[in-house]
């Protein structure tokens, strides 16, 4: 994973992506008990946003020149299938903007904060998201005020009440 993170950071150094953060299951497992997952989701701000038809073109070029094979919607970087995702709505954009710098395997990286991951789980609202959300409630010392403020602004308070029974 260290080498994977090094290569992802290289994308920023090269100016191919402006910003990224670990999202999805691998971000959730930073805070909650881990369970099985097979890919690493990365939210990214692409440097060349004018290429709207294929925003990941530069990333795929970079992957090809480095010998990292595509696998379905992923690129396998040092054994880990990495999925690059654009911030697809305002909540996710803000989550990426406010992501936190951390160090993993002695590498600098970025990760979504727990309050945003929880809000995104409420927004996606699939069965598996509800289960993960419950784990955040019972296992994580998150900032409740910040979480409530986020879900209020993004109209997710109703979902929260329905799921948590508050």
């Amino acid at each position: 994973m260290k080498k994977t993170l090094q290569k992802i950071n290289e994308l920023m150094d090269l100016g191919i992506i402006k910003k990224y953060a670990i999202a999805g299951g691998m971000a959730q497992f930073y805070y909650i008990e881990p369970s099985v997952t097979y890919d690493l989701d990365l939210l990214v701000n692409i440097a060349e946003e004018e290429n709207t038809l294929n925003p990941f073109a530069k990333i795929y070029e970079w992957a090809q020149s480095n010998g990292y094979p595509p696998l379905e919607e992923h690129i396998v970087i040092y054994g880990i299938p990495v999925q690059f995702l654009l911030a697809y709505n305002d909540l996710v954009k803000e989550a990426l903007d406010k992501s936190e710098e951390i160090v993993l395997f002695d590498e600098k990286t970025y990760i979504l904060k727990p309050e945003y991951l929880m809000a995104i789980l409420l927004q996606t609202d699939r069965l598996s998201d509800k289960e993960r959300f419950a784990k955040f409630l019972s296992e994580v010392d998150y900032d409740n005020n910040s979480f409530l403020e986020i879900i209020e602004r993004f109209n997710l308070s109703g979902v929260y009440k329905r799921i948590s029974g508050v």
Partner: protein
Amino acid sequence: MDKNYISHIAESKTHYHKTSAKMPYEEKIKVIVKLQQIELEMMKKNKTRKNSNRFRKVWQIY
């Protein structure tokens, strides 16, 4: 069934999950890879389990 017994088990499980949540991320990655091995083995043995995603492979990172 003794209610204390059941609540004790529930408390114990909650404590276990909270402790697992607090382990270092590097250790969690090892757990994830182990779980990948277990799940894929179970999928092989149990044909009723679906594995439609080609990217479901054990991470070769160690």
